């Protein structure tokens, strides 16, 4: 007999999980579909911000402003303002409503003797030009506030949903593919199921977080470039919180996706088992879209673990949450993540090697059908 080379020690659980995570990341990053979808996403975010900025006329050199003749002397002819004369307050209001001008300066009773009329918000350049800040009368204030509110809440909800569904599906698909091709049998003869699951969650969470951070970075960049810094100061802190919540919230969802997918043996069957996970992912989005002006719903959302990653940043943005609330919600999320991951690991460990018919969750958890 020829001597055999010395055996190597099997890797530790942590190291095995890192190896699995490394493979998940490299294989994703190299896939064309991932690169293209990420690029499309980032370009889309950039385009949305730039286009919305152009639409609101921020890029135009001069802001058209109507000035009632009697107070024409109050408005200096600064750069950035295109002044036009109107005979009286009614004509000025009409011009604003028609969209001919962004704002109008009209006589008023106050000590300044003037006030500003605007649709949703008074142009900053006009307010800066006036020596003393006048009263601003917004013609349609509710709609305006709702607009930004809607856009931002919609943004958080959409980014979370898209990202969670995208990477959640990837996890699910990889899990089933491993089962279907039986490579899982080879993998599990090398490393424990726990390491495989942990690596899968870790790798995809890192990717999802990376992508979300990139979206956040592109958004910030776009806002700065298009001169919407004022909006940035409003959403800056909530965005940071969003990324923090996202990291934890995604780990939670990822484990649900992996455990669900481990119940079936064929790609064709994944749709059905993933439904609950999909609903958990989409629900926060729909809630935030339909109830973004309902403080009660938002408050509940911001504490329920699956919707907290959307709910809490939205409330922070709206200024409805006290400083300790995100911390409490984060603690709730972390606690429930530990529980859910433990359950998911149990389901995964017990069902990932069972081929053929769909495995019942109850059967797996009761331990009666344990292999």
């Amino acid at each position, binding site marked *: 007999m020829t001597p*055999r080379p010395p055996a190597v020690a*099997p890797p530790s659980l942590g190291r095995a999980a890192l190896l699995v995570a490394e493979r998940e990341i490299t294989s994703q990053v190299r896939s064309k579909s991932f690169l293209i979808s990420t690029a499309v996403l980032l370009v889309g975010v950039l385009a949305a911000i730039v286009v919305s900025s152009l639409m609101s006329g921020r890029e135009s050199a001069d802001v058209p402003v109507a000035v009632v003749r009697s107070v024409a002397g109050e408005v200096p002819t600064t750069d950035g303002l295109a002044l036009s004369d109107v005979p009286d307050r009614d004509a000025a209001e009409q011009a604003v409503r028609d969209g001919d001008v962004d704002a109008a300066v009209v006589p008023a009773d106050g000590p300044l003797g003037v006030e500003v009329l605007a649709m949703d918000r008074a142009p900053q350049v006009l307010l800066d030009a006036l020596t003393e800040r006048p009263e601003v009368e917004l013609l349609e204030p509710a709609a305006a506030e709702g607009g930004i509110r809607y856009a931002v809440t919609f943004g958080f909800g959409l980014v979370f949903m898209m990202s969670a569904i995208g990477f959640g599906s990837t996890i699910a698909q990889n899990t089933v593919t491993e089962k279907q*091709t039986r*490579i899982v049998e080879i993998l599990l003869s*090398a490393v424990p199921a726990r390491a495989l699951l942990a690596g899968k969650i870790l790798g995809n969470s890192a990717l999802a977080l990376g992508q979300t951070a990139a979206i956040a970075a592109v958004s910030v960049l776009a806002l700065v470039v298009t001169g919407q810094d004022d909006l940035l100061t409003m959403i800056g802190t909530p965005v940071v919180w969003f990324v923090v919540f996202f990291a934890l919230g995604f780990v939670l969802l990822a484990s649900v996706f992996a455990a669900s997918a481990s119940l079936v043996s064929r790609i064709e069957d994944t749709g059905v088992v993933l439904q609950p996970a999909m609903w958990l992912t989409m629900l926060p989005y729909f809630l935030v879209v339909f109830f973004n002006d309902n403080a009660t719903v938002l408050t509940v959302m911001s504490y329920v673990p699956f919707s907290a990653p959307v709910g809490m940043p939205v409330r922070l943005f709206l200024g409805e949450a006290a400083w300790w609330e995100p911390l409490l919600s984060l603690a709730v999320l972390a606690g429930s993540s530990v529980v859910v991951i433990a359950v998911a690991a149990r389901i995964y460990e017990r069902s990932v090697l069972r081929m053929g018919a769909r495995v019942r969750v109850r059967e797996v958890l009761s331990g009666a059908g344990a292999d």
Partner: protein
Amino acid sequence: MLELHGISRSFGDRLVLDDVSFTVGRGRLTGFVGGNGAGKTTTMRIILGVLAPHGGTVTVDGAPVVGAQRARFGYMPEERGLYPKMQLVEHLTYLARLHGFDRQGATERAEALVERLGLTPRAKDPVESLSLGNQQRAQVAAALVHDPDVLVLDEPFSGLDPMAVEVVQGVLAERAAQGVPVLFSSHQLDVVERLCDDLVIIAGGQVRAAGTREELRSRHGSARHEIVAEGDMGWLRDVPRVRVDELAGGSAVFEAPADVAQHVLTAALARGPVRAFTPLRPSLAEIFRDVVADEPDLQEVAR
């Protein structure tokens, strides 16, 4: 050596393995033969710990196999599985690393194995682009890349051309020569017959025969002889205790106890010259038929 002691397993109320015991010796290529649904794959999955037995134990050198030890097994599952999009060498490297090799050691091993199996031109190709035969070789490589202490291969030769069978056979023999117990299943009885030192025949979830190839040959299968004589052998049909299997002019194949066969030879010589008189060794296919035939179906027994 790898030993199975009284392994049993059922799926639902269907008993698929019933008290299966056999031994795979160090340095022995052991063939595991049985019909479809005989329990080969289930047995192998139990050895690997992919499936838990309902009774019995698996031991290596007398000690029950535990988790970490199974990581030192090499396994080729029945349904081939590798990540379709991964490059071959990269894939093998990944598997070796999962078994604890560092990156460099893993890569060296993967490259050496790819070369040994004649896959070097395909080393950088994604697994899914390989031909079926090459995927099969890749699968063998995946089972071997971490220098396993025990090798369990489910149908390693199916779908391979004769050249590839030769290569894989060589690789397995090498591992056996290093003292690794090698168990492989196959439907191709001729291949098994040629390769293996020991045989385990399973049918209906029970081991029907086990032992070295020669033992099985002498124990099972009938005593048959071929005789070729100058004259017509038609008279053989009338000899008592002789069963004639084939008869064409001067040549005949018959089954008879040894003394009767000698008597036939004497009688033939009395009638004229005899060109040949050969005892026929039973082929594996014949042993298999002999062992498996007419046994009650276990499934029906279970019900």
